[in-house]
């Protein structure tokens, strides 16, 4: 099964999972960062225009600092997100999925130099595209990767049905599918939902509308709805 999931197993046997982020959103996030950085530099240039040569010197210093330490600052101090990454919901983490450390961030950003070669981050893009977890050279050296931050789901309004206990022998994935069905009841067409519900006819012994209603009731039960009725 092809997927972009990155998973780590902790010593306690807990599986941690994250979705590794590929080249396209990362390039776009970098574009956003470039945009912010140039805004800052332009503003600085205007502000320092009065100081002629000294101003130029300060501006060059600032551009140096921005180039090399803008990502480091944001990655370490702001939870692994530069403004561009924030816009795309990306986070840099260590490859054991812990928050990124100073040394790792410094290393991965200093190695932008290698990724930039021979021009315009070509090496970085190629490495990201070919690597299993979309890591550029700096990521590989520093042992970091970029993953998607999991958005917290907005609370769903459940359909108003009386919860019913589920049939025996449901596995975790089955329960999740049932819950997913009830959560997406607003997005899926009614006909499709009935079709899906009828798939489980041997299990529920119900058809059409009744089958869907039953599955919804079970889903509400699984989500912790109050039992009534029975």
């Amino acid at each position, binding site marked *: *099964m092809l997927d972009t999931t990155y998973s780590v197993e902790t010593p306690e046997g807990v599986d941690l999972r994250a979705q590794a982020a590929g080249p396209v959103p990362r390039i*776009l996030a970098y574009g956003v960062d470039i945009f912010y950085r140039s805004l800052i530099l332009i503003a600085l240039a205007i502000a320092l225009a009065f100081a002629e040569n000294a101003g130029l010197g300060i501006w060059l210093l600032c551009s140096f600092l921005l180039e090399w330490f803008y990502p480091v600052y944001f990655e370490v101090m702001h939870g692994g997100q530069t403004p561009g990454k924030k816009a795309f919901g990306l986070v840099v983490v260590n490859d054991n999925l812990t928050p990124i450390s100073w040394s790792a961030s410094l290393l991965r950003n200093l190695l932008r130099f290698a990724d930039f070669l021979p021009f315009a981050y*070509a090496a970085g893009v190629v490495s990201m595209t070919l690597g299993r977890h979309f890591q550029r050279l700096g990521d590989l050296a520093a042992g970091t990767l970029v993953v*998607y931050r999991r958005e917290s789901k907005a609370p769903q309004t459940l359909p108003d049905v009386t919860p019913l*206990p589920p049939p025996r022998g449901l596995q975790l994935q*089955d329960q999740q*599918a049932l819950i*997913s069905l009830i959560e997406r009841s607003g997005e*899926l067409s009614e006909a499709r939902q009935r079709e899906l519900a009828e798939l489980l006819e041997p*299990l529920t012994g119900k058809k059409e509308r009744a089958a869907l209603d039953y599955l919804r009731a079970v889903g509400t039960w699984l989500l912790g709805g109050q039992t009534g009725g029975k």
Partner: protein
Amino acid sequence: MELERLAIRARLRSPWESIDLGIALARQHWWPLFIVWLLPASVVFACSFWLLHDSPSWALLLVWWLKPVYDRLPLFIASRALFGEQVSVSGALKQFFSLNRRDWFAWLTWRRLSATRSYDMPVTLLEQTSGSARAARIGVLHRKHSNAATWLTLTGFHLEFFLFLALLAFMYLLIPEQVQIDWLPMLTNSALWLEWASNVLYLLVMAAVAPFYVVSGFCLYIGRRIELEAWDIEIQFRSLRDRHLRAQKDRQKRAAHATTAASLLLLCVLSISTLLPAEDASAEAALTPEQSRETIDQVLAGEDFHQQEEVSGWRLKELDMDSEIPEWLIDFVQWLENRQLASDKEREVDWAAHIGLLAELLLWAAFIGLVAYLLLRHREQILQSLRWQRKKPETRLRPETLFGLDVRQSSLPDDVCAEVLRLWRSGDKRGGLGLLYRATLAHLIESYQFEFGDHLTESECAQLVRQRQAHPQPEAQRPVSAALCELVQQLTVAWQQLAYAHRAPQLAQVETLCNQWQEAFGNED
């Protein structure tokens, strides 16, 4: 459509994750996709080379403009690969014209510059719709994900261009410094062969990027369909149903077996009961599976499984780290600004020098601060490296128990020998000799700095003592006298015999040992 054969994991994805999945899928099948894209494109390229030989830019534009034509074959292969079906390159090339029949004119004219090309193409190619049906379908698809599709196209376009430049730069880097090429006339006169060479390069770059672009758009489309049609739920429900049916069949089979077995049993019982005097046959009240299932249902529906708990408590909130610039820094900067303004008004001539001086001072201060910090941080290591010859005495942890005996000095009585003999006479031989033995160990550890570890046996400890007696190391450790060594050997043997073989020594031997012990350690306390 057989969702069981899906080669990707069906789950809800954000549009960006779908694009990433496309990258991964294209990476897996990159070679066939690349060749299938490149071959038709190079045919067009060759034609344009003959027709538009003198205007390479127009030729490249023509090749570029016909991209939707070449995009269809990679899309076709990817759509089959998604369901685990391998299409060979030649097999795909044979379908070139049949795949390009639908809507080719639209794709080459008003839809050529569509920003969501790779996202919309599957509707034409795989769903085989056109006209109003297509429009309706596109409308549904575009309600989400169209934004990401646009960005995908933009990124692809720029990537092509930048990779082309990077390739040029790479080749330039490989030219040895000694080779002097006069670039200027070449670039200004734009030699024809140079332009065609760069066109070939651009074609290769386009062919390399195209699989990723096409398959990413396709996966975006698939991601949207998974969302719209709940493929993930369908796959899960199907597997649940199959599992259920299988289990049911198993149960029926078992039930059939059970009934035949039961009838046989009944026959036996009947035949026996006719011979034996009749007894109460309904004594067994075993639960049938149905009854036990009912019980399970009752238990599951009962109170135990429907308890709700409300938990409330205090937790540490995530701290707001945004405004951490200390007050004094702001004041200082303000003070600096005011001072500069004031000095500007006074003397407008050499304020630049002032700023320069200030910057220099600040840099020096930062440098000194950094050095001081580093010195402070690593003072231990620095001091140690300065006085490397003087070793720190290693403080080893002394064991508190050995072989289950407490060997701390503090656990010993004041007069060991008297206590040993008292215990011995009272009949507790084990306790007596044990006390003597562990007192010896304790003194060896305390006064002679022996390092007895948990891994040693009694005889190994004794051997260590003998070794030190045989090869004394004058500067390092306190030497062991021959008498002490002898005591340890004898005592160890005696203790081992008593402890493990339950053979107690004679009282006289114990007394001798006590005397020797008194000589060895008695005057230390």
